[in-house]
C-alpha cells in the first residue's frame, strides 16, 4: 500500500507545506526535553484538552525552540479504521528535509527549514479527542528533536531510586511494564514504562522523564532532579529463573537501535542515530536480564556494578 493509504482517503493530497486553516488562535508551550515546544492554532477546547493532559508542563507563554502549527482537516479525508486486535503504527515517509506521517485522524509533517518545525492536520475539534492526536505527533517530534540535540527517545521502562536510573528494553510483550511494576512494588519510582529520553551531552548519559507513559509512570518527586544518571541498560527476557549476564557493546547497541522509535526507520538520520546510540552503548554497561516475579528484580538492579 502506498504511503498513508491505510489512514487517508486521498493520500495524494497530503499537504506539501505548513499551511491551512487554523482551528483557532490559542497557543500552548510545553516544557518537555528538547523543548520548549510551541503549538499554535488551537481552539479553546483543544487548548484546554492539552493543558489538562500535560498539566505541570505548560508554560504561561513565550518562545519555543520547536514551533508547530495545528490545522483543521475534513473528517471525510480520513478512513475509518477497525482497531480491534490491531496494533497502532504510524505510517512514516522520511526524506532529506522533511518527514511526512499519517495515523488515526491525523496528517502531520516535520520540516527542517532550516530548523525543525511541525504541522498537524486533524478533524478532532474537541479537547478530549484532540489531545491523543497531538500526543501521537508530539512523540515523533520529541524523538527527532532529541536526536538532533545528541540524545534519543527509547521505547523502554525507566526506574529510579532517586539517585540513578535503569532502562529496561524489549519489544512489546517482553515485560517492561511487569518488570517496572515489580521494581515499584519494592520502592522504585517508575519514570515511564513506554518512552524515555536519554541525553548524553558532555558528561555521563542521563535519563530524562518524558510525559509519554503506558500503564505506569508519570510519578514525580516533590522535589529533586528531573533527570538521573543512567546506571545500566537491560534487555529483558522473560523466564522462570532470575539471571543477569553482560551484553557485548554490539548487542547493547542492537537493543538500543531496535528501541529507538520512528528515527530507526529514517535512512536520512541513521548516521546520527548510530552515533548517539554507539556512544551510549560504550558509556553504560548493558545486560541481558532474565527475570521472574519472585526473583528480587529491583534488588539485583541496584547490585549491578
Amino acid at each position: 500500500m502506498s504511503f498513508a493509504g491505510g489512514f487517508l482517503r486521498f493520500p495524494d493530497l497530503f499537504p506539501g507545506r505548513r499551511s491551512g486553516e487554523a482551528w483557532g488562535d490559542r497557543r500552548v508551550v510545553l516544557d518537555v526535553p528538547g523543548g520548549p515546544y510551541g503549538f499554535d492554532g488551537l481552539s479553546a477546547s483543544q487548548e484546554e484538552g492539552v493543558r489538562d493532559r500535560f498539566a505541570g508542563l505548560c508554560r504561561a507563554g513565550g518562545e519555543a525552540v520547536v514551533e508547530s502549527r495545528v490545522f483543521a482537516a475534513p473528517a471525510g479525508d480520513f478512513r475509518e479504521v477497525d482497531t480491534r486486535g490491531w496494533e497502532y503504527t504510524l505510517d512514516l515517509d522520511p526524506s532529506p528535509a522533511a518527514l511526512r506521517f499519517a495515523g488515526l485522524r491525523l496528517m502531520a509533517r516535520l520540516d527542517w527549514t532550516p530548523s525543525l518545525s511541525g504541522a498537524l492536520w486533524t478533524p478532532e475539534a474537541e479537547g478530549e479527542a484532540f489531545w491523543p492526536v497531538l500526543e501521537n505527533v508530539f512523540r515523533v517530534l520529541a524523538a527527532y528533536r532529541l536526536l538532533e540535540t545528541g540524545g534519543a527517545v527509547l521505547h523502554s521502562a525507566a526506574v529510579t531510586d532517586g539517585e540513578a536510573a535503569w532502562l529496561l528494553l524489549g519489544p512489546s510483550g517482553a515485560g517492561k511494564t511487569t518488570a517496572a511494576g515489580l521494581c515499584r512494588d519494592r520502592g522504585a519510582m517508575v519514570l515511564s514504562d513506554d518512552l524515555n529520553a536519554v541525553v548524553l551531552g558532555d558528561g555521563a548519559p542521563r535519563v530524562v522523564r518524558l510525559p509519554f507513559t503506558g500503564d505506569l509512570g508519570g510519578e514525580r518527586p516533590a522535589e529533586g532532579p528531573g533527570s538521573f544518571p543512567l546506571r545500566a541498560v537491560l534487555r529483558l527476557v522473560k523466564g522462570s529463573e532470575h539471571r543477569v549476564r553482560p551484553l557485548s557493546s554490539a548487542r547493547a547497541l542492537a537493543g538500543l537501535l531496535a528501541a529507538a522509535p520512528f528515527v530507526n526507520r529514517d535512512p536520512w538520520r541513521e548516521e546520527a542515530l548510530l552515533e548517539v546510540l554507539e556512544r551510549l552503548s560504550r558509556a553504560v554497561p548493558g545486560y541481558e536480564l532474565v527475570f521472574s516475579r519472585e526473583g528480587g528484580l529491583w534488588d539485583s538492579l541496584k547490585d549491578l556494578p
Partner: protein
Amino acid sequence: MSLLDPSTVLRRRSDVRYRRIEGEAVVLRQSAAEVLVLNGVGADVLDLADGVRPVGEWVDALDGEYEVDRETLASDLLAFAAELEEAGVLERVEGER
C-alpha cells in the same frame, strides 16, 4: 531461490545500515526496523558484499585472517552469505556486470 555459487555477486540491500563494534557488526534493516548482530565473519561478509566482487573471491580477501584452511573458510563464507540473503540483508546483482 537458487543456491549461491562462487560466481554469485552480492550487495547489501539499500535499506541496510551497519556498524562494526568490538569485533561484531550491528545491522539495521530500516524498512522493517529490524536489528541483527553478526559475529566477525558475518561482519566481513557485509564488508565484502560490495556488488562487484564475486563470492568466490572473498576467500582471497580474508586469507590469513582466520585460523582455518581455505576450504573451510570458503564454505563458511558461502553459508553466511546465504543466511544474510535469506534474512534480507544481502541481494544478488544480476545482469549488471
